[in-house]
């Protein structure tokens, strides 16, 4: 395996830049954002350089490693701080650094009025460092460091304006939901060590063949739990909507393109585990299918543009997770969709931020309308992203989404029909709610509140949007042409030896079906939202009410977890005081009571003392007499 000395800079540069900007404080306010953006751009350059070098190698020897130092060595557990850059991680590295740089540039303008802009950029750099560590770690434990690091960065960024108590609560919710997933990752690592004696990807891959099916299924289930936490999949999905409290660039970078896709990375990286356990794969596809529908449904009722896009992200990641559970061929398509989604979703979030910027930070789409003429660049780039997510050919989403629907149908039997059907239904609903967003925001009557003067955003904001729009247009074609991505990833996910089963229906039929449901969904939305009221209507169907309340996810969480937890805590506090400490205090009070009772012997009467003396003497004499005898 080749070694490189550059990999560490991918992580070290943004990490030190982050610490530097935080420690320097106000001094760095004038130039902190420039430094942060340059650092991120430099990581992109390093990533691109490594990519070039990789292209020049043959498939098997494309991976590069770098060992930094020995980290933990206790007994048979030996974990080094080492990095691994292979075909899978380079996709992520380029996505993270590329989209990251664009979002840094965007943020220079978006956050220009915020006096804490330097701190924002420090946190963004921290995020970049942690996310890169996540995808570059060569063992589950190294991945875990990055995994929690992005959780921390996400917490800091969601709660960036934490003087607002709602935002502070949202960031806490995100962190705790992530932590539940982290329990899964910890347990997976422990099972790996107990089974294989190692936690490195190589080691686990080597041992996966011979392990017991229960252990492999357990590892798979735990990894899935971790992915659910980080990628906001059912049942740990409730934090993503609230996470929109953070500034929009955060939503674009973290909660669209990168952090939330970490779960997909984890499952793809652990392909040797999932390929060895059909139980684990079944769980994965169930979670993916449920989430893609869940996200789509709640997206239909969201009036907050960011929350609508968040629901959409949840749903699209559901597609990716679904794909990863469909066997070796699925991984490449999941990654394909991940990359295209990174472009169009980040682009749409930046577009939403641009709209908010022009509309005085208003997020309610009912207060938008007719913005296309006044914000043309935003409207066009957003529109291209919209076409991509719908899956209209020849835009990016067409290539990635259709492939997933196809592979779902080809999974065979009832499972295939159910999954494929769910994916198709999801595509229809996606078309519906995304069209709704487009119509409510850019087209139709102007429902603005008084005093709004929408305007196009400055060049620093529109340039990244334009570049991402190029991605929305072209990335699908470029990556699928000649199955480029599939072949690129083959050495990592071992998809080359898979037997191609007989497909359920030809690819063309799938594409036509998909296009058909998309057109129906879009048309339905256009008809329904010809006119939009500027206040959310009260008398709507139960279905809509449920979707507005996120299908009651928060109420359920509250009833199942928060309320019992609070009761339990209060009960334990009382029990600790009354029962356990009560026991301790009882010893003290018992001794006190006993001594109080005994004290009464000292009654001050000499004669009773004399009687006691006599009694004691008599007893002693009898005792001596008895014992002596």
């Amino acid at each position: 395996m080749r070694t490189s000395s550059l990999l560490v800079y991918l992580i070290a540069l943004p990490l030190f830049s982050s610490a530097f900007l935080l420690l320097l404080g106000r001094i760095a306010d004038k130039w902190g954002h420039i430094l942060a953006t340059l650092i991120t751009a430099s990581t992109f350059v390093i990533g691109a350089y490594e990519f070039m070098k990789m292209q020049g190698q043959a498939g098997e020897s494309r991976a590069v490693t770098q060992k930094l130092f020995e980290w933990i060595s206790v007994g048979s557990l030996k974990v080094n701080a080492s990095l691994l850059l292979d075909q899978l991680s380079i996709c992520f590295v380029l996505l993270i650094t590329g989209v990251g740089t664009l979002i840094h540039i965007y943020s220079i303008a978006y956050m220009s009025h915020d006096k804490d802009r330097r701190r924002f950029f420090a946190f963004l750099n921290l995020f970049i460092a942690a996310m890169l560590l996540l995808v570059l770690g060569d063992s589950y434990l190294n991945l875990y460091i990055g995994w929690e690091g992005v959780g921390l960065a996400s917490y800091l960024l969601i709660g960036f304006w934490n003087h607002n108590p709602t935002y502070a609560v949202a960031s806490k919710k995100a962190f705790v939901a992530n932590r539940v997933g982290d329990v899964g990752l910890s347990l997976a690592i422990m099972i790996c060590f107990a089974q294989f004696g190692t936690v490195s990807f190589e080691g686990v891959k080597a041992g996966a063949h011979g392990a017991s099916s229960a252990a492999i299924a357990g590892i798979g289930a735990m990894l899935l739990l971790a992915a659910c936490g980080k990628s906001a999949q059912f049942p740990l999905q409730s934090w993503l909507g609230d996470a929109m409290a953070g500034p929009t660039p955060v939503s674009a970078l973290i909660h669209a393109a990168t952090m939330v896709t970490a779960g997909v990375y984890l499952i793809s990286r652990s392909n040797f585990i999932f390929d060895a356990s059909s139980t684990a794969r079944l769980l994965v596809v169930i979670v993916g299918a449920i989430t893609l529908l869940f996200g789509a449904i709640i997206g239909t009722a969201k009036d907050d543009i960011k929350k609508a896009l968040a629901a959409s992200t949840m749903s699209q990641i559901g597609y990716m997770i679904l794909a990863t559970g469909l066997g070796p061929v699925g991984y490449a398509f999941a990654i394909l969709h991940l990359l295209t989604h990174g472009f169009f979703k980040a682009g749409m979030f930046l577009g939403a931020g641009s709209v908010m910027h022009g509309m005085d930070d208003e997020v309610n789409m009912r207060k938008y309308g007719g913005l296309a003429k006044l914000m043309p660049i935003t409207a066009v780039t957003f529109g291209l992203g919209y076409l991509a997510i719908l899956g209209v050919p020849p835009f990016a989403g067409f290539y990635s989404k259709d492939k997933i629907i196809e592979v779902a149908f080809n999974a065979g039997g009832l499972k295939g029909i159910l999954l494929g059907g769910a994916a198709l239904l999801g595509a229809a609903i996606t078309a519906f709610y995304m069209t709704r967003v487009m119509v409510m925001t850019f087209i139709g009557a102007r429902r603005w509140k008084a005093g709004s003067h929408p305007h196009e955003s400055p060049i620093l904001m529109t340039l990244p949007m334009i570049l991402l729009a190029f991605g929305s247009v072209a990335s699908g074609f470029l990556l699928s042409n000649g199955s480029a991505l599939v072949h690129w990833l083959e050495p990592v996910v071992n998809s080359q030896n898979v037997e191609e089963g007989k497909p359920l229906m030809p690819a063309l039929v799938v594409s036509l079906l998909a296009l058909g449901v998309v057109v129906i969904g879009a048309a339905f939305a256009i008809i329904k939202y010809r006119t939009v009221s500027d206040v959310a209507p009260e008398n709507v169907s139960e279905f809509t009410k449920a979707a507005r309340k996120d299908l009651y996810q928060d109420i359920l969480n509250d009833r199942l977890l928060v309320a019992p937890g609070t009761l339990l805590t209060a009960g334990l506090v009382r029990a600790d005081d009354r029962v356990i400490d009560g026991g301790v205090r009882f010893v003290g009070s018992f001794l006190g009571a006993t001594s109080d009772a005994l004290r009464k012997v000292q009654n001050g009467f000499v004669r009773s003392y004399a009687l006691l003396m006599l009694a004691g003497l008599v007893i002693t004499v009898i005792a001596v007499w008895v014992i002596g005898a």
Partner: protein
Amino acid sequence: MDISNYLYLSVILFTIGATGVLVRRNAIVIFMCIELMLNAANLALVTFSRVAGNLEGQVASFFTMVVAACEVVVGLAIIVTIYRSRRSASVDDASLLKS
């Protein structure tokens, strides 16, 4: 020789003395009973000295007499002082050391 009579006498004297200590209230009477108990012990000591044929018991009885004398001196002084401040020689009245 048969010492049992002397020992019975000693026990009887001791018991009378002990009962007197427990029953009587006047401090001076209690002291006299204590003297009775001490002399009962003396009698026993002398008796055993006679039986053993050495003088150790009699020497011990001298010790007892000296101890009795000292005790009476100190005790009577205390009783007189208490009587002077409290006008009562009853031991039941002097119960302030209760807890």
